[in-house]
């Protein structure tokens, strides 16, 4: 009884997984992507907006070799998160473009449709 019970599925907010590719001058690390993306989310949506959007840049699905990653957010905030990703211009020290490949409803479809996080080397 130390932890709260998991909410029933019908009461949980609907989530979406945004699969994106990074086009950059040099390959970038997950921590740099996370830092740049959160900088953009916070500057565009603010703290309250980010809390509403329930954003998470998934570390285990970041594919270092393919420069591909996944952002999770609420289904109602997909366009806002997309716009925030469009406003990322520098990751680490290299100029970059984040191109969204697609939006899925589950992690497994993100993996099967877009090969997100299927690389065994990804950390």
């Amino acid at each position, binding site marked *: 009884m130390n932890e709260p019970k998991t909410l029933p599925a019908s009461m949980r907010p609907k989530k979406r997984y945004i699969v994106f590719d990074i*086009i950059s001058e040099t390959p970038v690390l997950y921590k740099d992507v996370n830092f740049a993306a959160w900088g953009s989310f916070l500057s565009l949506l603010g703290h309250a907006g980010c809390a509403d959007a329930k954003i998470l840049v998934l570390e285990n699905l970041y594919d270092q070799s393919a420069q591909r990653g996944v952002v999770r957010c609420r289904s109602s905030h997909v*366009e806002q998160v*997309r*716009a925030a990703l*469009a406003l990322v211009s520098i990751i680490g020290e290299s100029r970059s473009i984040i191109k969204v490949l697609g939006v899925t409803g589950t992690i497994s479809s993100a993996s099967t449709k877009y090969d997100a996080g299927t690389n065994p080397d990804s950390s």
Partner: protein
Amino acid sequence: MDYYDLHVRSAATTGENTSGEMAAMATRLGLKAIAMPGATEKTGDAEIISCHMIETQNIQELAEEARKYRDNCEILMVSGGSYEINRAACENSLIDVLCHPGRGRRDSGLDHVAIKAAADNNVAIEINLREILESYRKNRVRVLEGIKRNVFLCRKFNTSIVITSGAHTKWGMRAGRELAAVGVLAGMELADAIDSVSMVPQKILETNRAKLSGKKWEGMEIE
């Protein structure tokens, strides 16, 4: 769906990269065509639309230049900023797109009179991503405020909106769907935002190409 970016700059004008590099990046981002003022180089990548950007602070010169270039290019754009130029561009039916009407201003650069005139003369108002991308903190708030105001007025008067990257380097370009997301952020409906990077530019282009090929009115051809 075909996406268009009607305002990017190559090294031929004030940009950093060559038109070939810009076209290659456009292909990578899934854009069908891009408009680059001054670009003449043809590549095998994304289509380059022939366009002209009128950059003047004089209303008389704007009208003269519009008449001069109308029959030589597919897209005729005006670099806005001052209210007089913005208003004159909106009232000129030869112009296709008014670019960055709020550049260098504290307000949006347009009022209800100008936007109504733009609707009557089929002049599209541009939302420029570069203005948002290259501004920070309080300035970005001001820029977004102006864009939101223009979007509100455009929706009220049914004026066309085009969303462009306004990129000066290939790293400033974005995919069509991302540009549409910025439109949603500025207060547009999602369907309208997608149209403003696909259907609206396509319609402008098709109309002008038909006119340039001698077909001045629908159903009639001039030999």
